[in-house]
């Protein structure tokens, strides 16, 4: 009994902070989502916020955009595996390449957003480069045209997140026993076959981890990009759930509706976590 009392004394500060920062807000946001805030008081309105939410085209647009961002994840994973394998062979300057590829990942999202905001201006550096080399047709309005703004956003996120994949996968590959590769080589496997049959299976577990992390990133960690680069525009073409919640609560003073969207986001994240647990369990069996 004594040890468990001491144990909980050590846990206590963490529990207090977690209750304030996680438990209390989650309980509250569920209550808020069934209420409306007017003149400083909350009053119960049943499912009204959820009804408004489901009929709001901007909300639908926001979640559609988040799901569209998920398309970046498989690309990141495939390119990440490919580059990790190239670096694994530790050719000339492999450390330099690893350092360079990882650098974007540590930069702050606002910093990245501002730099790319300038690069992708209609008369910005990237279009100027296209025009100089005679590819003026490619000089599109990257961020200003609703047709292209999501793709541009995806490019920027890809640029920033790729390094994490490469470093994560490379670290795993470097701990694979060299005998596995030698055995494959002795069997006469070529480069592609060797990595397909040795590297990729060894990476399965980290790939699962990475895919889950990135899926969560795309759903609930892209506020910085849109806040800095597009503000959700043009014409709400880059609206995402986080920005919708932020604007609805703090700019349009409708925290009830924002809370309903928050609960929706929470449910989506919960589904991802459940999938992760199931995959991990299947893996360790």
């Amino acid at each position, binding site marked *: 009994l004594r040890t468990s009392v001491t144990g909980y004394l050590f846990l206590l500060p963490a529990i207090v902070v977690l209750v304030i*920062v996680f438990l209390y807000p989650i309980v509250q946001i569920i209550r808020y989502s069934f209420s409306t805030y007017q003149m400083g008081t909350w009053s119960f309105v049943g499912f009204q916020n959820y009804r408004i939410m489901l009929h709001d085209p901007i909300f639908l647009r926001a979640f559609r955009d988040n799901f569209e961002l998920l398309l970046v994840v498989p690309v990141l994973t495939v390119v990440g595996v490919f580059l990790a394998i190239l670096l694994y062979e530790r050719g000339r300057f492999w450390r330099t390449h690893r350092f360079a590829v990882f650098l974007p990942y540590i930069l702050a999202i606002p910093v990245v957003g*501002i730099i790319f905001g300038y690069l992708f201006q209609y008369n910005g550096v990237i279009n100027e480069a296209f025009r100089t080399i005679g590819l003026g047709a490619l000089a599109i309005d990257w961020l200003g045209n609703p047709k292209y703004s999501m793709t541009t956003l995806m490019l920027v996120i890809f640029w920033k997140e790729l390094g994490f994949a490469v470093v994560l996968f490379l670290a795993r590959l470097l701990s694979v026993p060299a005998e596995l590769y030698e055995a494959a080589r002795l069997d006469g496997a070529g480069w592609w076959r060797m990595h397909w049959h040795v590297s990729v299976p060894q990476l399965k577990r980290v790939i699962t981890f*990475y895919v889950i992390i990135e899926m969560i990133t795309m759903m609930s960690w892209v506020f910085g990009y849109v806040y800095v680069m597009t503000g959700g525009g043009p014409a709400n073409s880059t609206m995402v759930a986080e920005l919708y919640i932020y604007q609805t609560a703090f700019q349009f003073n409708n925290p009830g509706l924002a809370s309903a969207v928050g609960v929706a986001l929470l449910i989506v994240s919960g589904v991802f976590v459940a999938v992760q647990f199931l995959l991990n369990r299947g893996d360790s069996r």
Partner: protein
Amino acid sequence: VRIRRWTGILKQPVLWVITLLALFPIYFMLVTSLKTPEDYAANHFGLPAHPTLSNFTEALGGSKFIIWFGNSVLLTVGSVLASCLIAMLAAFALAKLNVPGAGFWYNLMTVLMVIPPVVMVIPLFQFMVNIGLINSYQGVILIYTGLLLPFSIFLLTNFFREVPDSLLEAAAIDGATTFKSLVEIILPLSTPAFVTLVIVNALWVWNELLISVVFLQNDMMKTLMVGLTVFQSRYTLNIPATMAGLVIATIPILVLYIGGQKFFIEGLTAGANKGE
């Protein structure tokens, strides 16, 4: 054989193209920050014709930049210290003190790690208004500490578990109190884990935007990241000055990263290798 040779020839160029694409935006930020506006107007890509530091003095002098920088430093130091300390105590309990339900708490941390912070923002805003901590360092440090705790506890618990129980039992026989054995046995063995944690957490707080946008709206309380977005709109036409601001904001991150590259990568990969 032909195919193998082709892949061999392509490997290096592919890596160089990727490296150049990864570095170009950073190169653009650096060289632009060293150009005069006239120089930049005439030459967007190349090296500065007459490198100048005037953009840096302009960025630092003309606005509240230094105050914002100081705010970010204060919030980073405060939240990193608080999260490491609280996580250390909790992880010790979970790894070594046979707390009932230790498995539940550990699993709870992995779940909390993926909850979107934006979900907590609205209730926390109301909460901070009620207790008068809007636009305060304490309020934001409390939120940051809470958001950092799940990962911190997760990482430290995994690490503390590796410390052999026999060392603790020996200390207990010598009459060491529980707290003393944490400080004298576990801590010295855990330096690498703490270095990792400090770097990962400090980068996270330094780069954070959403919480600081919502909770620190007063101009004198803004963090550097929020300040930069204000700064950018003020200097829309003076791109070199904006870039100088970005460079200043990035230097502390680079120092942390280069100083602790090994630990940092270990921390990021820790989650993947200790899945269950």
